[in-house]
Structures are given as structure tokens and as C-alpha cells.
């Protein structure tokens, strides 16, 4: 399985080429009945050690793109989690509720987040996602400078 790499400073963030990517830094892996989503290495690197995850919507409900569906917390950071697409949210990864550190340990495998049935075709290829990251990364660095004046 090939992968692409994006340099976050000195940190190498890897992105498997076997799947697509959403703008909210989730990967999307299409299966026979549904599409599985998880956090990309970029998002995981920003979060660092995840220790808490909760969902604010129930499995088996319809969600809209960018609708808040839960929250995640690490030692240093916290974030809302948003739906990566319009569709039917069929399942959450129950294993993560017991041990969210799987997100850090195996973010592209056992640390997956949720499954959806979606017709969304706006996901990015790995190459497109890398270009997206280049733009986002610049923004992040500009934000650092803005904040260091704060």
C-alpha cells in the first residue's frame, strides 16, 4: 500500500493512498455498504495524545456536512468533531469509547471513528488532500504569528 507524506515541521505525517480524504481532516474508506471514516495523521498530530471521545448524536441518524457530532480531547487540545459528509451515520467505533488512544496507535485501522452511508462525491484524492494541507499549514503558521502578538 503506497502512501504520501506531508512534513509538519520535522514530523512526517503519512497518508495512505488507498482511500480518500475529507476537508475536515478525516479519511474516507469506501466499503460495500458504507464508508468508514477516521482522523488523518495531520489531525492526530495536532491533537497528540487523545484520552476522551464522545458523540453527541446517536448512531442511526441522518447528519449534515459539518454538523457537530461529538467532541474529542487530548492532554493539550480539544475539538468539536464534525460530520465529514451529508448522509446516514450508521455506526460508531465502540472500541474507541473504551480506549480512544487507538486513534493515536492505529489511526488508519483499528482507530477508525464512524461509518456512514453517503453519496458524497466531494472527497479528495490523497494528492488533493496534500495540496489542501499545504494551504492549511500556511494558515496555521500565520495563526501562530498572530497569536504570538496576543
Amino acid at each position, binding site marked *: 500500500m503506497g502512501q504520501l507524506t506531508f512534513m509538519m515541521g520535522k514530523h512526517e505525517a503519512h497518508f495512505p493512498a488507498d482511500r480518500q480524504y475529507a476537508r475536515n481532516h478525516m479519511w474516507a474508506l469506501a466499503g460495500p455498504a458504507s464508508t468508514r471514516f477516521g482522523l488523518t495523521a495531520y489531525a492526530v498530530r495536532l491533537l497528540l495524545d487523545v484520552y476522551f471521545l464522545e458523540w453527541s448524536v446517536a448512531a442511526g441518524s441522518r447528519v449534515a456536512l459539518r454538523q457537530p457530532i461529538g467532541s474529542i480531547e487530548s492532554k493539550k487540545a*480539544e*475539538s468539536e468533531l464534525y460530520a465529514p459528509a451529508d448522509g446516514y451515520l450508521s455506526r460508531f467505533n465502540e472500541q474507541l469509547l473504551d480506549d480512544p488512544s487507538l486513534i493515536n496507535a492505529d489511526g488508519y485501522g483499528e482507530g477508525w471513528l464512524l461509518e456512514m452511508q453517503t453519496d458524497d462525491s466531494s472527497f479528495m484524492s490523497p494528492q488533493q488532500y496534500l495540496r489542501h494541507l499545504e494551504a492549511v499549514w500556511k*494558515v496555521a503558521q500565520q495563526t501562530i504569528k498572530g497569536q504570538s502578538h496576543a
Partner: protein
Amino acid sequence: MVGRLAVVVSLGRGGHPAKRAVEETLVTALRADGRFHVMVIPHVYDVPVGGEAHALLQSISDDFVLLCWLGPRAARWTLAQLHVQGRSDPAAAESSGDESGSSTAAQRSVVPQPHASRTIHCLDLRAGHSAKHYVEEIERIASESEDRNRAPSASQDQASPLIPSATGASPSTLPDTRAGLDGEAVVRRWYPVIDYSRCTNCMECADFCLFGVYGLDHQENILVEQPDNCRPGCPACSRVCPENAILFPQHKTPQIAGDAPATAPWKIDLSQLFDGSDSRPNTNGEPEPPVHASDLSSLGDEPPAARPQHRGRKDELDRLMDELDEADL
């Protein structure tokens, strides 16, 4: 005979006319009252260790009142860093969200603790009360201190909780009532102040700081060893601190300045990065940007040539160093 309560007036920075007017009104009113020993010093945060104003503060052995343009929490720990120890006023602590009380702080404090059982009453001049209000509050404090002094069971460091005119020294033997103001211009300082009631000695700040500001005492407790090595304007170690125990009293963000109630540890909010909306950088003072400098610092870049020897995360922190260098702080 009961001594006079010491009242220290810490002047605002820069001599703003409105602040000067408040200070002058207060000093005049307190001196006219006659029951207080009024002392005027530069802004307490700018007081250099070993200087005249520092000596004046250290000469006070009993309860005193500090009137300053800082919140009680920042004022109290700034004084502690000057080795001017004492319990905080319970009423002031309650109203300011300072839950530290005194015993915890005394146990955790890493500096010598003469007079640790006396009470220091820090009153915030920014609250904008009238001079009359402040004078009445100080009269109340003086009255309470006198009561404690008369009570046989009162615990006392010294013979008197007030300036000890009855025990040999007299107010006239105290240093001049103005200190550190008449010589060279007061230099504005910038350095972290540790709230030891919250500090867990985790060393994140020492690991993080690249300027050698932090050090350890003989018991390996963190302390601000080289305050003037701090980079003016940089509050990054405060953001790194998991317990919000590091204050920069002159920072405009209440939480960093020690004005906001010290509650949950600081968390970086990544929501704007994770909502897929491609948020733009925010440098115009509008809502809080999505990532804090301390966060992105952990993403790494080339290390500079020379850096202090701290454990862990060295390479990860150098990006912030570079960014701060470029930021023209």
C-alpha cells in the same frame, strides 16, 4: 500603643494622568487619616530584586495592604516571587477566584518564608472604586488586624501584627515612604510569575522555555531563576502550563494575567481547524484563533544552534522559537 498599619501604594506604569490622580488622592487621604504608614513604590511587578523598593517591602514584618493596578492573585504571587510572603486576604481571594488560601501555598512555595503567617491584603485599583471606598476598606482591615493583635490566642509572627511601634521600633525607623522612584527611571519588566497554589512541579515550563528563565531550587522545585531572560511579550510558557499556574500580569488576556478565575487547565481548541471550513488566519483581534502557539510549537523544525539542556520535545519546540523570533515581539 498599637502601631500603624502599613499601606503600600504601587504606582501604575507610565504615569497615566488618570491613574496618577487616583494614586495621589489615595495617598493624600491615607496620610491625612494618620492611622496608616503610607509607602509609595513603583509598579510592584517592576520592582527589581535588591533595589530600594524591594528592601522597603521586605522591611515590613507584619500585616500590610498593597494597593496596586493588578488583580489580587497576580499581586500576591508577584510579591511571593520577591520573597515577600504572607497569607492572602480571604475576602479578596474569594472574590477573585483565588482558591489557594494560604496553607497550600505555604507548603508549595519554594522560597524562604519569613512572615508567612501574616496577611497581605492586595486591593486592585483597577476596580475603579472611589478613594473613600478604599480608605474605608483599609480602615476595616486595620480594625481586624488590631483585633487579632489584642486577642490572646492570636497567632503572631512578631510582637505585633502592625508596624511595631510598641516593641521598640517606630515608624520613623522604617525606610523612606517613597522608594525606588526618585533615582533612575523604572524599567518595565516582563517575566513569568508562578502561582504555587496551582503549580504541580511538572517541569513543562522548564522544558519549554528556551531562554533559561526557569531553574530549580535545592529541593528540585521549579522557580523563576532568571526572570529578566524572559522574552518581552512572550506568554508561551503560560499556555503550555497544564495547570494555568504561570501568570504574566501585564498580558491582556485575563487568564494569562491571572485575572480570570483559575479553573480548568488550558486547552487548545482545534475546532476551527477540524470543521473543514478552511478558516483563515485571524490577526485582527477578533475571536480566538483556532490554534495556540504552544500547540503548533510541537510540530517541529530545525533546531537553533544553541539551546538549554531540557529533557524531551526539544526539536518540537524550536518552531515556536523561530516563530517568535520572526514575530518581532
